């Protein structure tokens, strides 16, 4: 990235730049410098509790600050979700803060999109630039606010950005990570058992993980709970994966399943337990809706283990054994939900089948099964939302059976690229997301940005997406801002606060201040446009009483876009917390970073590795409403989990029961019950491979790609290819190969290994950045989305990331 700065500005900025020079190697190196060592004394040492944002888990951390420099991040023991740990990424958070490539001041593009030529401007100049373009667009589109799309990456402040774009600005065209991540599993479980739930891996005795890789895609507390209990220590683990992952190391049974056949495996297990009648009959009788239809469906379609053996490559006998073991350990057995589940066309059905199978053991809403937990309430933060008569519905609402509030990234983008939108999408605001690397088929994403009149990117790093922006607004990192307070549900619920550790560096700002500045600039000019085109408002303004001015109307009805961001984040957090828990608890929260009722009494350090958060009888394992109130007393004293499981209860589904049959889906052309269709399965022809993608424990998607501390753990990604097949193709370790699909090709080094099944290749997501602004990440390995085809599944329009066929060739 080239940044043009005037001589004067350069001098202004040189102080900041010299600090940066010192931090470029290691934060701790600054301290090792002898001249500075004398100044630093322990007087200036502060320990500030905060929350990690190196991935989505939000673990509690304590930042050690010396003389205004963050020198170490330590785990915070008070948080029951993260249980006193920080992973490699959490530890390396300092290098996100002191990354020399960080976006430091607002930038406006002066070259072509993507070539990285920008000039440094002031915040006011940046806002002014956005205002001019945006007002023109909204005026031309006659106040249809939806003509501006927006997307956001997951994070505590995501909603601050959404509040501005959706509630205040008024656009319906929001896309986020859900449709390229967990939409199918979250909705699949919600529609079937009433919620995604949490796997109680601290108590489960039998766990099947299909594709999920908790050792390398760390989820708290699942990762920590599970791997302390595997390998003959209480939790039996079955792993299905085309790849022998670090999770598979811990498996009692590792099954190298053929890619895309998990549904057949689950259906066959279901067949076996139903035909042998080894499921929990009492639980099913009490809590299932549509079971008889499901039973008939499974039996009539003959989803036998023998049938599944041919599809999955797993022996029928093994399928039967696993099904029997699962039921023997039930209700403390779990078919683990999974997380990033954008695999194939039948993904929604797979997740439903998993949920129903788990429920057949009675393992929903019971200790050791899938639990729903409790969430500690927070007071609402209210926003005055204006109503716009001309804002239209989202463009891709008919792209799949159900398009929710977070949209279908692929369908949405493709409509823009193909020019098939019902009204033009003229601009886009991007916050903390990097669709150039994260959405399948990069070429099309680039094309989409090129069609836009205004692209604004708010981020901390000059990502590939930032390089497509007209205006880049630099956000500060998570260690430089307070974020909205968050309540975490679970068996041991708690509230976590991300506090500012140091003041924002350079000219960066937290997103709430960016939104405030932008709103102040945009509010009045946009109001003028609304007054010009909005018939309802015209009428209402005409009918105003004598003592009411237009200004009053503007303020009272929320058209002052800045009013939602007047308070500081600290104040907002206080207003959300204090009414529920009081001033004393507020002080405690700021001191410890974590709060839950009776923490003082309950919290106990057992040793340096073990902490107790709640007494066993105060944990929220069973929370779903029971049909008979008197059953509640029964639970407290009950020792047999099976008895608890079998109680009649009310789930948060349509029928208040485990829902086997979804009538509403049938009307939308979706199978009402999980069904295997041969035609939906992508066979791999000779000479081709199926491409799969995934994660590992040292990088978070593509957001940590420039972190030098993490890059030394893995410099670039390699393509995994079955060693026998590699031999046939003459490919050796480290050889450069070309991986080519119908949408693109990449060059990447090869890693032939016995740890992956034939006909499937794999490489890790998050590498292959092309932005020249990323000194360390630039062109390391390859990006998966350059070659993944942009197909969507029919229920939610989610991506189908594991169905792309590729060829591999040594170059």
């Amino acid at each position, binding site marked *: 990235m080239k940044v043009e700065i005037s001589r004067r500005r350069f001098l202004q900025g040189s102080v900041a730049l010299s600090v940066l020079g010192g931090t470029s190697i290691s934060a701790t190196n600054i301290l*090792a410098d002898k001249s500075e060592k004398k100044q630093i004394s322990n007087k200036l040492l502060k320990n500030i509790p905060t929350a990690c944002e190196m991935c989505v888990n939000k673990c509690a951390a304590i930042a050690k600050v010396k003389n205004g420099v963050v020198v170490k991040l330590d785990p915070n023991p008070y948080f029951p979700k993260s249980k006193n740990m920080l992973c490699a990424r959490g530890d390396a958070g300092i290098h996100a803060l002191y990354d020399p490539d960080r976006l430091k001041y607002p930038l406006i593009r002066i070259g072509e999109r993507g070539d990285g030529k920008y000039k440094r401007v002031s915040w006011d100049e940046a806002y002014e630039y956005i205002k001019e373009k945006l007002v023109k667009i909204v005026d031309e589109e006659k106040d249809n606010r939806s003509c501006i799309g927006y997307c956001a990456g997951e994070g505590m402040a995501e909603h601050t950005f959404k509040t501005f774009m959706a509630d205040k600005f008024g656009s319906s065209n929001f896309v986020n990570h859900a449709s390229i991540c967990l939409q199918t599993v979250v909705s699949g479980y919600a529609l079937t058992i009433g919620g995604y739930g949490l796997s109680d891996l601290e108590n489960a005795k039998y766990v099947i993980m299909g594709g999920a890789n908790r050792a390398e895609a760390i989820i708290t507390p699942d990762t920590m709970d599970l791997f302390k209990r595997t390998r003959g220590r209480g939790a039996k683990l079955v792993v299905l994966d085309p790849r022998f992952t670090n999770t598979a190391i811990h498996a009692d049974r590792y099954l190298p399943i053929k890619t895309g056949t998990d549904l057949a495996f689950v259906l066959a297990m279901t067949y076996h337990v139903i035909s042998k009648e080894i499921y929990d009959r009492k639980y099913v009788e009490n809590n299932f809706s549509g079971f008889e239809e499901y039973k008939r469906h499974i039996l009539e379609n003959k989803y036998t283990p023998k049938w599944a053996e041919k599809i999955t490559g797993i022996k029928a006998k093994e399928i039967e054994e696993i099904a029997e073991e699962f039921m023997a350990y039930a209700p403390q057995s779990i078919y683990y939900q999974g997380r990033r589940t954008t695999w194939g066309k039948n993904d929604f059905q797979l997740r439903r089948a998993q949920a129903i199978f788990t429920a057949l053991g009675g393992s929903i809403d019971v200790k050791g099964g899938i639990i729903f937990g409790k969430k500690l309430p927070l007071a609402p933060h209210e926003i005055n939302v204006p109503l716009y008569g001309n804002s239209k519905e989202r463009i891709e609402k008919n792209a799949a059976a159900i398009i929710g509030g977070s949209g279908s990234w692929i369908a949405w983008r493709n409509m823009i690229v193909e020019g098939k939108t019902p009204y033009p999408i003229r601009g886009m605001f991007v916050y903390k997301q990097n669709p150039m690397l994260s959405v399948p088929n990069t070429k099309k994403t680039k094309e989409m940005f090129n069609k836009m009149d205004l692209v604004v990117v708010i981020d901390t790093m000059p990502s590939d997406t930032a390089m497509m922006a007209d205006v880049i607004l630099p956000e500060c990192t998570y260690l430089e801002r307070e974020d909205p307070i968050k309540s975490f549900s679970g068996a041991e619920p708690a509230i976590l606060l991300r506090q500012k550790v140091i003041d924002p560096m350079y000219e960066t700002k937290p997103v709430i201040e960016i939104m405030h500045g932008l709103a102040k600039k945009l509010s009045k000019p946009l109001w003028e446009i609304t007054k010009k085109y909005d018939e309802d408002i015209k009428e209402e303004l005409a009918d105003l009483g004598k003592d009411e001015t237009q200004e009053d109307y503007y303020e009272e009805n929320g058209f002052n876009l800045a009013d939602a961001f007047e308070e500081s984040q600290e104040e907002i957090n206080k207003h959300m917390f204090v009414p529920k828990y009081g001033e004393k608890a507020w002080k405690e929260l700021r001191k410890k970073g974590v709060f839950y009722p009776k923490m003082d009494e309950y919290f106990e350090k057992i040793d340096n590795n073990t902490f107790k958060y709640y007494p066993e009888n105060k944990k929220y394992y069973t929370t779903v409403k029971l049909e008979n109130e008197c059953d509640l007393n029964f639970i407290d004293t009950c020792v047999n989990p099976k008895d608890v499981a079998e109680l009649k209860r009310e789930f948060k589904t349509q029928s208040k029961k485990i829902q086997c049959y979804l009538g509403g889906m049938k009307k939308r052309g979706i199978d009402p019950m999980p069904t295997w269709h041969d035609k939906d399965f992508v066979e791999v022809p000779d000479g081709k491979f199926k491409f799969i993608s995934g994660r590992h424990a040292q990088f978070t998607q593509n957001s940590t790609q420039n972190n030098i501390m993490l890059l*030394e753990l893995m410099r670039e990604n390699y393509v995994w290819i079955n060693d026998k097949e590699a031999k046939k193709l003459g490919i050796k370790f480290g050889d450069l190969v070309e991986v080519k699909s119908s949408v693109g090709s990449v060059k990447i080094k090869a890693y032939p290994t016995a740890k992956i099944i034939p006909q499937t290749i794999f490489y890790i997501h998050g590498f292959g950045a092309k932005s020249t602004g990323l000194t360390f990440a630039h062109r390391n390995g390859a990006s998966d989305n350059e070659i993944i085809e942009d197909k969507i599944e029919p229920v939610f329009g989610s991506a189908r990331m594991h169905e792309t066929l590729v060829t591999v060739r040594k170059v």
Partner: protein
Amino acid sequence: MNYAMALNYQNCINCKACETACKEENGVQLGADKQRIWVGINEGVIFGKPYINLYPSQCNHCIDAPCVGVCPTFASHYVDGGIVKVDPSKCILCKGCMEACPYDARFVDDTMVSVDKCTFCDHRIDEYGTTACQATCPTKVRMFGDLDDEECDLVKLLKTKKFFFQKEDLDTLPKLFYIVPEDEVYARQSISRNTTIHTWDEFKEKYDAAKDKRSKEWKK
């Protein structure tokens, strides 16, 4: 005081949090081969099936450390608690200690122009009671403690478990205690047949005697 570390290596998922926390805590030079701490990987295929064993590791802080004896400038030395350290101002980079170390626990830190190694985070023991690698570990592989303190968590743990050492036959009296899995199948999978299995009672006497002999050299 006699500091040591137990490793419940069965918990390891090779996430490398320990390596990163170590580098951040101690300002270790960047570079993949500059590690004070690491996860040893034993990987292979048996009957067509892949397997991996993970052995998280670091300096053993041996009681009879060959790296200390071999150092011509006394840069390698013991400090209180039997921790083996390097004084960078005395190191002449002859690398004799790197040759002598059976565990390959030492490397050259180019920024300090000295050999560098694990210090059991001795600068933070008073404040935190443990090392950075133990604190950060998601699955809690490590347990740091004082072998002389019968009340400390480490000794309590060792009294209830069996344990073994890496390369014990070299007689350096290492202090990384690998906890033997209670499940026999998993124990057999990750421990070679020739490895000696110890219990606290039979081990204590030998180590105490060695410590008594050596501890005169431990600088305050």
